[in-house]
């Protein structure tokens, strides 16, 4: 055990002081001042200054506590080395995993937590109160969530589409479709829609190759592709949990992947899936159909949000 008497430090100054009460109080005072600086730093508003004051000061404070209060500066070096090696392990973890967190997709995975959708949920929340946050939580929590814009279906149920006449292709829809495709469809259909995604190795028959003109069991017209997405087909599940806007977006994106522009919808085709093309929102009802269990979930979520955000479903 260290004792005052064993320290004949050649560094000059008062040797008793280095162990004395006033020394510790001095260190405490410095720590308090540093704490004050780290709180005031962000108020200046300059981002790098905030980072320096907040985290730089934190590091300085931690080192001070370690050296002066824990006496690491007079402890055997091996202790410091052991602690340092623990920190190195943590850094290995951080630098090993962080690059993946920053990416949108990898060789065997796709990022399901969509930043853009979360931001959109934030906007909705600030309009509708804190209930919207619960919807964003639902998006994060569901491991097999196949919706990138969970709040949107609630809007869809009342017929409000972001796009006017989404059954007509526009560059905006195609761009949105590409995003939705990458999160929801690429795993099976592959990044270029050739039916060779990572999950397709386990599937028989293989997913549709969108670059080919043949093999489309239910046709290549927009309404037919929309129908396939909404109801599923064979090994493909229904993606009716995606908003109708997202489904139409994917329809139009998928059609750009191959020679499909010639296949167009007639009014009869659209009416078959419940769309009245003379109206901007297609007339509302039939194309807003979602599976019953999903509808029940939505109703439960909405009524929970009505009571209090805390009681929203997990």
């Amino acid at each position, binding site marked *: 055990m260290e004792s005052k008497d064993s320290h004949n430090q050649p560094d000059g100054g008062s040797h008793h002081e280095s162990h004395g009460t006033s020394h510790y109080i001095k260190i405490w005072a410095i720590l308090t001042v540093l704490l004050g600086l780290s709180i005031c730093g962000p108020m200046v508003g300059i981002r790098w200054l905030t980072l320096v004051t907040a985290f730089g000061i*934190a590091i300085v404070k931690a080192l001070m506590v370690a050296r002066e209060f824990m006496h690491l500066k007079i402890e055997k070096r091996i202790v410091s080395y052991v602690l340092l090696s623990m920190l190195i392990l943590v850094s290995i973890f951080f630098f090993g995993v962080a690059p993946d967190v920053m990416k949108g997709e990898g060789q065997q995975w796709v990022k399901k937590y969509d930043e853009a959708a979360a931001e959109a949920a934030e906007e909705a929340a600030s309009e509708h109160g804190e209930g919207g946050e619960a919807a964003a939580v639902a998006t994060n929590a569901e491991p097999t969530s196949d919706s990138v814009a969970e709040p949107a279906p609630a809007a869809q149920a009342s017929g409000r589409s972001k796009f006017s006449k989404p059954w007509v292709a526009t560059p905006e829809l195609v761009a949105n479709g590409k995003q939705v495709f990458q999160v929801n469809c690429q795993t099976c259909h592959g990044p270029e829609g050739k039916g060779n995604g990572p999950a397709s190795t386990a599937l028989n028959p293989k997913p549709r190759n969108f670059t080919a003109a043949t093999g489309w069991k239910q046709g290549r017209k927009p309404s037919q592709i929309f129908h396939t997405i909404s109801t599923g087909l064979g090994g493909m599940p229904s993606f009716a949990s995606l908003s109708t806007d997202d489904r139409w977006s994917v329809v139009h994106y998928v059609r750009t992947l191959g020679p499909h522009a010639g296949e167009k919808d007639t009014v009869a085709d659209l009416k078959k899936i419940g769309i009245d093309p003379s109206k901007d929102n297609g007339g509302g009802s039939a194309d807003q159909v979602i599976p019953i269990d999903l509808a029940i979930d939505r109703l439960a979520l909405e009524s929970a949000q009505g009571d209090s955000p805390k009681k929203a479903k997990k």
Partner: protein
Amino acid sequence: MSFQRPMATERSATGISTCKLGVYWVIGSEIVIFGGLLAAYVMFRLAHGSWAHESAHTNVVAGGTNTLVLLTSSLFAVLAHQAAERKDTESAFKFLWCTIGGALTFLLIKSFEWGGEIHHGLTIHKSLFWAFYYTAAGIHAAHVICGAIIMAIIAADVKKHKDLQRVEAIGLYWHFVDIVWIFLFPLLYIAK
């Protein structure tokens, strides 16, 4: 009074007393526990700018006050160690209980802080930010609670002039708890 010589002060293969070495092993594993959790938090925070909306709601006053409380309690812990070294068990006992007082103050402020936040719907389920917030600060608070309990037991022994070397040991643990909070504070409260 044991009839075997206590191992903690007498035996040492490394030149550091076994008691202290044990505490440092604990601290070493805690570094990767908290370090891992906070590293994961930093990664996610950097990748999701939307968290700034959430983190704006943490209470800097409560967090800052708690940082000051813990710093002060660390001061008392080192003063307790100093007193134990000169075999002044009265002062050591008093300073240990001042440290425990700091712990209790910390927990009191935290319970008001969390009570207020939960009342406003900012629960652990609200979003990933809040999940990290409550998990990190919660695991830290659990360490504060356990440390305070152990400290009280050691203080009782110290009063009976028993096992004074443990004052330093629990002090080391306490300083580590303080250091974790020193990093938690900017990560959860200042980074907005």
